[in-house]
């Protein structure tokens, strides 16, 4: 009985008794969720337009962040380093399209997936060759990102909000709005969606596959840069950032591989729920570190009921 009380009632009592702490947990969960959603967006965009699961998204985050910091270290001012990094990401997108994707048009999806593993390995080696493997500091202040903290005192307690986390959330929201606007209201965006719906039909009306792929990979590069800046500002820029890409996998399972809104809702849901579970159930009952598996279990439960994910498209194939 006591065990049942501890599991089912006590966590909620704790939430009620320390609402400021609960608010802090929710805020931290929200920030993590926004960051997961950002990474997942990179995957979704590429999958939507080309049916390629881009294994290289994680290393693209590292590569973009390292390029930005590397340029700045070499005397390029921050205002110029950002567009130059975007230029590098564009060149990368063109290179991937020309060297990796174009020769593999028409090949099975798994071949293209394997090719992105090749891109990952190349970027790891090339990145380490150019930038070295040491920890680097994100140029947070040079980019004009505030580094202070806001303190609130609700319910007699305190909630700390880092200004850079707040900036990350605002930046992510703006990026998502820009993306949704681009995809829904620009002709290029509609072309990307058309390509995602039906490759052959899109090609038959004159949509250029190679142009779209370059654009989509470039947008994934832009998202990678944004992700690299906000994650890098939290814990430094190093190849360890690549690991965070794996956090996007359960987000994709939950939200669906083809849905922009799924990536956002999935990311936020996982960020907040995993934090609540870890703090109120994981640490007291399971010894902590439940964040490594919680999201996958949640995604699996969702898949039991909705195999296409919460927002994925239900594909009915004729037998």
């Amino acid at each position, binding site marked *: 009985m006591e065990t049942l009380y501890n599991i089912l009632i006590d966590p909620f009592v704790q939430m009620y008794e*320390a609402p400021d*702490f609960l608010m*802090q*947990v929710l805020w*931290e969960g929200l*920030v*993590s969720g926004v*960051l997961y959603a950002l990474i997942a967006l990179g995957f979704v965009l590429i999958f939507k337009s080309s049916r390629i699961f881009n294994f290289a998204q994680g290393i693209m985050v590292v590569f973009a962040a390292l390029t930005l910091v590397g340029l700045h270290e070499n005397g390029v001012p921050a205002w110029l380093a950002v567009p130059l990094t975007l230029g590098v990401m564009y060149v990368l997108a063109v290179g991937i399209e020309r060297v990796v994707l174009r020769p593999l048009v028409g090949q099975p999806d798994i071949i293209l997936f394997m090719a992105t593993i090749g891109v990952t390995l190349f970027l*790891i080696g090339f990145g*380490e060759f150019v930038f*070295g*493997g*040491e*920890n680097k*500091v994100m140029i947070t202040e040079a980019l004009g990102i505030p580094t202070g*903290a806001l303190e609130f005192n609700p319910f007699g307690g305190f909630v*700390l909000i*880092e200004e850079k986390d707040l900036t990350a959330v605002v930046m992510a929201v703006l990026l998502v709005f820009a993306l949704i606007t681009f995809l829904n209201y620009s002709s290029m965006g509609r072309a990307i969606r058309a390509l995602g719906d039906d490759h052959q039909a899109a090609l038959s009306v004159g949509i250029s596959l190679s142009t779209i792929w370059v654009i989509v990979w470039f947008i994934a590069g832009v998202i990678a840069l944004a992700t690299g800046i906000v*994650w890098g500002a*939290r*814990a*430094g820029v*190093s*190849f*360890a*950032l*690549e*690991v*965070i890409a*794996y*956090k996007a996998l359960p987000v994709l399972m939950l939200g669906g591989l083809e849905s922009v809104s799924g990536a956002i809702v999935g990311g936020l849901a996982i960020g907040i729920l995993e*934090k609540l579970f*870890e*703090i109120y159930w994981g*640490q007291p009952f399971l*010894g*902590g*570190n439940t*964040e*490594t598996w919680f999201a996958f279990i949640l995604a699996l439960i969702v898949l039991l009921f909705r195999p296409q994910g919460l927002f994925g498209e239900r594909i009915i194939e004729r037998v």
Partner: protein
Amino acid sequence: MTKLSKIGALVAAGGLALGIGVTSVAAETMYTPNMSYRTGPFAATGIPLMNGQRDYVNMLNARDGGVGGVMVDFEECETGYNTNKGVECYEKTKANAIVTQPWSTGITLQVLPRTNVDRIPILAPGYGFSPMSDGNTFAWAFNPPVSYWDGASMIMNFISDGDMNSLKGQKIALLHLDHPFGKEPLPLLEQYAEEYDFELVPIPVGLKEMQNQSAQWLQIRRERPDWVVMWGWGAMNAGALTEAVKTRFPMDKFVGVWWSGSDDDLIPLGEKAKGYKSISWNVPGDYPVIDAIKEHVVDAGNSMVEEPADMDKVFYQRGVVMSMFLVEGIKAAQEHFDVGAVNAEQLRWGLENLNITDELLEELGMAGMTAPFQTSCSNHTGHGGAWMLEWDGEKFVKASDLLKPDRASIEPLEKEKAAEYAENNAPWPGRDGLPCE
């Protein structure tokens, strides 16, 4: 290409390969592979250490023509701190190696049984499995100058100000990597918690959570521990320090193991991290040995350090000390067996008879850089002791006298766990007839 010319090319290539083989046999060297991790999530920790290790050996090769007149072939095999790759590296290098330097507790545990069969000594300075100290059980493994349990006991000694009974009723959080390395201090700390009646709160950090430790630091905020002890590696250290600053945890109540004390993790935080402490078995400073490395290796363009200032950092200098242990083992073996190039079995003897004295450190240009110690058949660690370093906002400075491990508590635990390991891995050879001279 005609068939004849193809055959000719093959013969020429074969002859060339044979020639290279003959040359490498003719030039006597000692092959001491190092399983480095200059890439991957732990590279930030690995690079300065590997640089220090490599540069010390290269300095001896350049200045003295090697060790005892024999050049040391210090080759790196990159593992990215991945256990599977580490085992591959071990298998790839073992044929000619006189030592294996596995560089991760996970890899050490994997290769430990194999080294008994292959008869190659493991040198794991300041890492690996603490019971390896028991040389009667782990005849081929060495972890000088102190083990993780030594480190945990010295940290507890420091935070209790020498009186462990004063910890009664306190709460101590252990923020650790959820990995064999991170779990190493748990048996001793659990024993202490029971004996001295304090509460130990282990807080694991998963490999994927190293960069985002908000949940762990929320737990620390809720638990309000008196001290946080960190057993971190690689990106985990920077992540934890950033969160500690962010959550305004008092830095003077935050202590790390020696792998959580890299200048590179603290520099971005600067003044904000002032007061953070890390136990260390080397003290950073200006030493003649560093000048010699600069002269013979760095200025000659043969080092991988990016800036000479990197040579002043704790981790670089620790790498230098680590290679010194290896070289002194080689020298001891050369002297004892009266040979130039020592083999793996001879080096094992050398590492078992290390005698690092103050006089020797002075002679090597390393006086005060590390503590003197001696190994023996039953003591493969030496247990020399360590100092507490403190971050002053710009660099690490010495913040204590030499601390000594609580051997009275640790030794029985080492023997118990070593026996348990041998039983679980039976038939375990132990010393397997190796003489104790």
